[in-house]
């Protein structure tokens, strides 16, 4: 589904990604771990199309199509979703209205009719229950005054609404207490199918107890330096990132 080939990227003069290769197939969960500054968030931002970064070399394919030149919204329309580490507050636009706009724009791009209002409400109800989100919450301004946990839960709620092909969860566990973590992970697991794929970006192994990856990659200094199964996450937890740093 996602195929990244020799991806180099920089911000300003600084090269951050130095040749990333990654293959993600439908039905798989990949975890990308690594120390601070390794380029994890950069990688997720670039897959989603953040224009602040410049891709200097390499390609990103989604289902065989090179998406590296597409605008963020065009990638979203093709099924790419990025859950933000720091979701943005948008005062004056309610969660519901924001979702309605996002869904209908995506449908429009895919030449579908707008979703009828009653169906929209039904889906919203279903998905909010999945994430144990209070209905009142949905009429509040997007992320405004939300706690860290609420923001993250709201990100996964949006993921549930948009049903992406490829979801990238950037440090979704940061700022979550254990209960919220369980709810979020549970939601993600329920959304998982053999038709979609998930990339989990995280610092710690903790989240991977709940969202169990098929593959774990270690990103260090702009490159994937190690790949393995879920046991790699435990090894990292045990030995720490110094182990990776020493080897590279």
């Amino acid at each position, binding site marked *: 589904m996602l195929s990244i080939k020799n991806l180099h990227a920089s911000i300003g003069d600084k090269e951050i990604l130095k040749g990333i290769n990654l293959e993600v197939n439908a039905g798989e969960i990949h975890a990308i771990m690594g120390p601070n500054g390794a380029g994890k968030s950069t990688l997720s931002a670039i897959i989603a199309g953040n224009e602040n970064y410049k891709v200097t070399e390499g390609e990103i394919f989604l289902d065989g199509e090179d998406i590296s030149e597409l605008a963020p*919204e065009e990638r979203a*329309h093709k099924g790419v979703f990025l859950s933000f580490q720091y979701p*943005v507050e*948008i*005062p004056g636009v309610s969660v519901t209205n924001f979702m309605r706009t996002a869904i209908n724009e995506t449908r429009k791009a895919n030449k579908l009719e707008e979703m009828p209002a009653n169906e929209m409400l039904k889906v919203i109800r279903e998905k909010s229950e999945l994430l144990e989100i209070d209905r009142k919450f949905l009429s509040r301004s997007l992320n405004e005054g939300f706690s860290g946990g609420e923001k993250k839960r709201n990100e996964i709620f*949006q993921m549930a609404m948009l049903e992406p092909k490829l979801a990238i969860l950037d440090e979704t566990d940061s700022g979550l207490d254990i209960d919220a973590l369980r709810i979020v992970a549970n939601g993600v697991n329920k959304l998982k199918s053999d038709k979609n794929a998930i990339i989990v970006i995280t610092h710690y192994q903790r989240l991977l107890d709940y969202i169990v990856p098929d593959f774990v990659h270690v990103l260090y200094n702009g490159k994937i330096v190690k790949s393995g199964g879920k046991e790699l996450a435990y090894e990292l937890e045990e030995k720490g990132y110094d182990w990776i740093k020493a080897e590279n």
Partner: protein
Amino acid sequence: MELKEKLLSSFMAFEEQIDVHSELHDVRTSAIKNFENKGFPTKKEESWKYTSLNAILKNDFTVFPKNENSIEFKDVKKYFIHEIDTYKIVFIDGVFSSFLSSTTHEGIDVCLMSLALYKPKYKMVIDNYFNKIASKDESLTSLNTAFANEGAYINVPKSTVVRKPIEIMYFSTGNEAALMVQPRNLIIVGENSHVQIIERHQSLNETRANGELSEANPVLTNSVTEIFAQKRAIVDYYKIQNDGLEANLIDNTYVSQKQESNVSVNTFSFGGNLTRNNLNFYHFGERIVSNLNGITIIGEKQHVDHYTLVQHSTPNCESHQDYKGIYSDRSTGVFNGKIFVEKVAQKTNAFQKSNNILLSDKATINAKPQLEIFADDVKCSHGCTVGQLDETAMFYMQSRGIPKKEAKALLMYAFSNALIESIKIPELKQRITKIIAMKLGVKMGFDL
């Protein structure tokens, strides 16, 4: 002939044409003298530093409006809050349209200024209020006073809640040759009374919508509004300035507030070639609240200048100024906010904010707070920001499938949202939101 000379010579003809009582004649005569001495303001004056009338004054304006232009209600329905019943005072190119209006004398007076000025029945009110708070020094106000004849007259007696909003509508067709109009509004709101008023300046030739150059003739409106809020009166005043590119508006508004009154003036500046808002608040009593809000969204070569004054002359009062502007293309904005706190005005709370977004490198904003504080126990603050749209927020929305243009619009909507939320008439709020969406060139993906 220069416009000034033309106006001065027209004054004689104007005075002869209508039969006025001597008090009014005196007021007009001294006003025209002041204008004659001072003339039109120029950029040499500190208060007009950023706004030049030169180019506009070169037009050969007709200073007396001609006959009523016939317009059918269905053609202008969308400019009214037509979902609900309202009082209406409608002018087309400066001439009252009785056909489109819906005035009243039942319980309250919502009618024509000319009626109040010349009918003996209203003489006492006119003697007590007309030109009593408007400046006798400012030349454009004087010019208006000299020619004051037509506009809206609203008198709400004490302890009256006016159930229906009052719409004062100034349409310009641009059909006639270059036209100068000088509306004069007088609004008196009695003790414990409450009224909601919408004043809209609207060109009917919406050439801008399709981006074509305007074919319409230039218009210059020099308007003066006096608002008197008696004890504990509540006045919600909304100004919608949505003219075409050929229209110029100078709006001089003077608000006089008595003890415990609460007056809000919300100015939505979305159009026109040049717009200058002189908004002045004067306090005569304690525990007064004054709110001055503004949203400005302009582009092309449009120019909007907000020049505000809050004169705190009494203790324990508060004023809040909140102006937001979004400027694109080569548009220019000015915010000059003056707060004057006199020595006796202890315990004053006076706040001022001006937040601006520039969407183009060629757009300009000049913001200038002017605080003169002579009392020592006050809370005053001012703040100004100029920025671009938050890129992270843009990326966030785009990553959810919302295209750039819509994302931009949503962000700008969010930016002005706090002020939109303060609109107390739901139908008006919806209308303003729609105008904003139109200005931003998007259909909001939802009803707001």
